[in-house]
Every structure is written in C-alpha cells, then in structure tokens.
C-alpha cells in the first residue's frame, strides 16, 4: 500500500481506494483479516478516524465486513464485486477521457479503434 | 487540590536534602577540625566539647530552612510543568519545610539534653533564649516550654524570611536578581548611615525606635534583669511577623510566571 499525499482527493477516499486495490490484486485474500485501523494509522501517520472513514466506505460497498471484537475481514465475493464495479466505471473513467483527448488532438474515431487493436496485439491477444 | 501528592513529593525531597546538609555540616564542623588536629598532632589538647559544637543542630536547621525556603523559582517551574498551581505549591512547600523544621528542632532538643548531661554543663543552643526568658514564669516546666516555643518561632521567622526573599527574587529576571542581590545591601547601608546621621542631629529616632525594639523583645524597661524578660512579647511579635511575611509571600507567589 502506498499513499500519494499530493493527490487532490480527500484522504479517506485514498485510503478506501488503496485497500480496494490491495483486495483486487489479492494482497488481501477473501476471508482474510485486513490490517486494523490502528495499524494503518500508525504505519502511515494518518488519523485513525480518517482510516475508519475510508474502511467504512468499503464496508457499505460490501467489500469488507466487520466481525465484532475481531476486526475487519475481506468479504466473500469481494474480488468479483470490485471487478464488476470497475468494469462499470471503465467507460466513464477511461473511454470518455480518451475520446475527449482524441478530439482535442483531431484524431478520428477510426484511428482510435485502430490504435486499440494495435495495443491488444502488442500486449498479446486474450 | 493536589496538596497531598505535592506535599509528599516536597517532603521526601527536603528530607533527602536535609540528610545531605547534616552530613556536610558534620564533615565540615566536626571531622575537618578533628582531622587537622590529628595531622598537626594536637589531638591531646582537644576535648570532646571543643570539636562537637553545641550549636550545630540549631545552625543546620536554621540555615536549611532559610536556604531552601529561599529556593522558589525552580520549585515553581517544576510544579507548573506538572500541572500544579501556585497555591498548592505554596502550601505544600510551607508544610513540608515546617515538617523538616520540627524534625530539626526535635534533634536539636534531644541533642541539647544529651549534650548538657554528658558532654558539657554549658547550656546547649536550644536553650539560648533561656538566658533572656528562662525565669519569667515561676515553674520550671512553664519556663522550659516557653523557651522552646520562642526558639521554634525564631526559626520559623528565619524560614519565612527565606521564603519571602526567594519569592521576591523569583519575580525578577536573572539580571534584575543580580542587581537586587548586590543593590539591596548597599541601599540598606546607606539607609542606616542616613538614619545614624539624623539620629545624631536630633534625638527623634532614639525616642521611639529603641523603645519599640525593647518592647518587641519583651524588656519593659532597661532595668529588666536577664531571664525575666516578658516571654509573651517575642511570642506575639514573632507570630505577627510570621503572619505578615507569609501573607505577603502567598500573594507574591500567585504572581510567579514562566517565562518571567
């Protein structure tokens, strides 16, 4: 985990994103305990309330679950849910930006589609 | 109020320091002369009474309460850093120092009795005031008690004077303190000189000042025989002095601050 504090995003959102990323990359596996608020707070010098706020976002999204007296655990199916969420956000986060930048550069639609094909080839088809 | 914790801390601290003071006093006043005598080979000329001064306990307790009564600012700093206010500092210090004074006096009395019985029949320091007040009452018990009370009050006067001076100094910066320490005695000498010169020119002062002093120490007139001075006079004047000085010290203590 690492935090980019220059980011203009509120810190609690960064905390949520970083943990989400770690779950998505299976650094925290489903059913496993994630580091406690105190541990994260202590290691990254972030106010525990901020950390908790970030974690609670993941709890309400269903990626984490609280177990009374034990701590926070990665919810079952969390990985899939994150994938689903990110797929939904892909259009807004990437495609719209891509199109708007392409228009600024006067790149036609066909050229963009061509480029996407080239990118797949280079990365190895899947 | 955190008086209990504050008192207990001050008392332990003073008790430790009192022990050290005694140790140093004994080394300086008893062992050093003895050692010098030994080295010079004059030990035969020494009697026990010579190197065991009868005033030792009185001097130790008197100078201790004066000196440590006078150390104000360091104690205040430590207390305010530890969340204890000026009032509690004042009371706990007064209480702790008074306890040491009582212990010191107890040692003094015991020492005096032992000294008179075993070492020399000269009166020990605890009974110094008996030459003035020792025959005021008709019973021996009353006389002994009154002399002890007067001695106690006298040492308390020394203690509160130390506290007052220390608190006054505590209000000033180091530079102003030095100026006060150097300047105050000089001013006092000048004042005395002026008084003396005034005194020789007209006899105004000689009419009431000596009268007042005599009244304070309990001489009804110049012809009062030694030992028959009024014992209540120093008790009353001493108590009044102690109260005035303590009240002044208390209000000055409330003005202590850091940084000054």
């Amino acid at each position: 985990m690492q935090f980019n504090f220059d980011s203009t995003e509120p810190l609690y959102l960064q905390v949520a994103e970083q943990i989400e990323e770690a779950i998505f990359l299976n650094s925290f596996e489903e059913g496993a305990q994630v580091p406690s608020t105190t541990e994260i707070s202590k290691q990254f010098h972030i106010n525990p309330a901020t950390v908790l706020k970030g974690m609670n976002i993941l709890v309400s999204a269903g990626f984490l679950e609280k177990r009374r007296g034990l701590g926070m655990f990665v919810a079952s199916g969390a990985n899939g849910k994150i994938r689903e969420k990110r797929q939904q956000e892909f259009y807004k986060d990437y495609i719209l930006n891509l199109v708007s930048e392409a228009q600024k550069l006067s790149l036609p639609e066909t050229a963009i589609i061509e480029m996407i094909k080239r990118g797949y080839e280079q990365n190895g088809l899947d | 109020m955190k008086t209990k914790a504050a008192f207990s801390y001050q008392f332990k601290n003073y008790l430790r320091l009192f022990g050290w003071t005694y140790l140093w006093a004994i080394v300086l006043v008893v062992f050093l002369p003895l050692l010098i005598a030994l080295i010079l080979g004059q030990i035969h000329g020494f009697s026990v009474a010579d190197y065991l001064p009868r005033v030792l306990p009185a001097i130790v307790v008197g100078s201790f309460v004066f000196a440590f009564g006078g150390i104000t600012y360091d104690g205040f700093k430590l207390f305010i850093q530890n969340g204890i206010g000026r009032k509690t500092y004042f009371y706990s210090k007064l209480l702790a120092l008074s306890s040491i004074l009582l212990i010191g006096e107890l040692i003094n009395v015991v020492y005096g009795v032992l000294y008179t019985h075993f070492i020399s029949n000269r009166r020990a320091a605890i009974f110094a005031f008996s030459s003035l007040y020792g025959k005021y009452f008709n019973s021996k018990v009353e006389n002994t008690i009154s002399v002890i009370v007067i001695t106690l009050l006298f040492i308390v006067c020394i203690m509160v004077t130390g506290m007052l001076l220390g608190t006054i100094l505590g209000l000033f910066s180091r530079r102003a303190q030095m100026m006060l320490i150097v300047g105050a005695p000089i001013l006092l000498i000048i004042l005395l000189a002026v008084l003396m010169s005034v005194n020789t020119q007209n006899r105004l002062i000689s009419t009431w000042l000596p009268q007042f002093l005599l009244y304070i120490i309990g001489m009804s007139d110049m012809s009062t025989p030694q030992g028959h001075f009024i014992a209540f006079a120093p008790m009353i004047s001493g108590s009044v002095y102690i109260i005035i000085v303590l009240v002044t010290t208390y209000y000055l203590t409330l003005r202590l601050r850091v940084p000054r």
Partner: protein
Amino acid sequence: MDSIKIAHLSKSFGQQAVLTDINLTIEPQTIYGLLGRNGAGKSTLFNIISDRIPATSGEVVIEGQNNVNNDRVLNRIYLMGERNLYPSRMRVSDIFQTTAALYGRMDMDLVHQLSSQFGLNIRTRFAKLSTGYRSILKLIIGLAVDVDYVFFDEPTLGLDANHRELFYSALMDSYAKRPRTFVISTHLIEEIANMVERVLVLQEHHITIDETTEKVLNKGYSITGPTADVTAYTAGLNVIGHDQLGNLRVDYVYGQLNGSRPIPDTVSISHIDLQKLFVNLTSQEVATFEN
C-alpha cells in the same frame, strides 16, 4: 469529559499585543494542528492555557472550571513547551518518577518502551541531553502521562527524520489506544497534515481558521493558466496568493469558487495541500507589515 473553552482572551506584553480577543473551543479526543508564523503567539496561547503566564483579559475554562491555579484542571493537561522547566541536575529517570508522582498516573511501560526505541539513556542528567533528546524526553512524557489534553509546542525540535517517524507512529498508536486531545504546533506542516482532524490558524493576534482539515483542504484551490484567463476567472474570489512564471499564472484561492462562472479550456483547477495553503494564507502578513 468536557472541552476547553477560551473566551475573549487577550494578552499583551507591555504595549505589544500578542493575542486579541481569542474565542476558541478545544474539543475532547481530537487532534489539532495549530499553525502560525513565528511570533504569531502560539506559545503564548499554550502558556496561558497551562497557567504559566496570566492572561491580560478573558479566561480559559477547562472542563467547566477556570484554569488559574486550579490543580484539578491543570492536572488534566500537559504542555510540552519550548522552555525547559525540569531541574537541570535531575536525571531522566527521576524526571519520569517526579512526573508520575505529581500527575498521579503515567504509563511507565510505555515510558520504558519509548525510551529504548528512541535510545534515550534514562541515567543521563537533564542538562547533559542534546536539544533533540530534550524534545524526546518531553514527547515521551506527553504520550505516557494520563491527561485529557496534550499540547505539543514544536515537538520535533532537533529530531532527525527517523526519530520524527518514530514519534508520529507512537502518537497515532497512543491516540488510537486512548483517544484524547493533542494540539500540535509545528512548522513541519506536511508531516502532520494527515494526522490532524482540525486546523487552527493563528494570524495577526486572531484565530482566523478553525475547521476540520477536510473542509480546509476542500476550500483550497490552485487555478493555473494564462494570466488573462486566470485573473478573469478568479476576479472577486478570495485569492490568497499567486505565482507567476512568464505568462503562466497560478492563483491560490481559499473559499468557494463561482459555480456559475464557466471554466475556460486553458485553465486547470486543482486542490492544494495544507502547507501550500498555509504559506499563501499567511504570506500576506508580511505584506501588511511592509505597507
């Protein structure tokens, strides 16, 4: 547990006013960052709250009681000040013992754990400690002593980067285990920015900002672009400072942007960090003095 309420507090030294009509509530269980330029009066404010010096007027009420010579409430706060009030001949271990005795309670396990982590030799006399280790000694006491309010005035003075990291970790750990109020005054703003929940800015004898860190950061913007476009966009906004590089201009704004005003394509807007915000907010101070 109640708050610290500061009402109409003023302090002047002779003719020089340092604090003027300060009104402030310090809430329980909150970490504050007190920011101010050198000489803004941060230490003076701390010294009055902890009753080391008297206020000229106004009062400090802690847990419902006036603080002056009031042991009950003074005993609930610890000020790690810039002044060293411990006897210079006293050993570190005795200072710990004294603090425990006079405050009543202190976590001695934590004291020993932190002493060894920081490499503080408890046999050393106070006078022999370096500036850094004097800070460390007072930090350890601040973290271990049982109080509700801890005031750290320049806590990292003389500390190297490793020791600062260690301190921040210990602070977060201690706060998480027993939430209480810490008010931290420091020039190393970025290092504490993520720990403080509320920001206080002391400026020109007044508290000019008293808000949650999140809100403060939310109100800080940098607007970058060609000079003409930027100044047109920021006209009427609360511009607290600017940078100019040729025709490229950055305006720093604190407060609301004008939502109805269109953002030109050439202009980009982003948030700024606490340090940048503070520097721009308080750089005006010098300007007003010069004028």
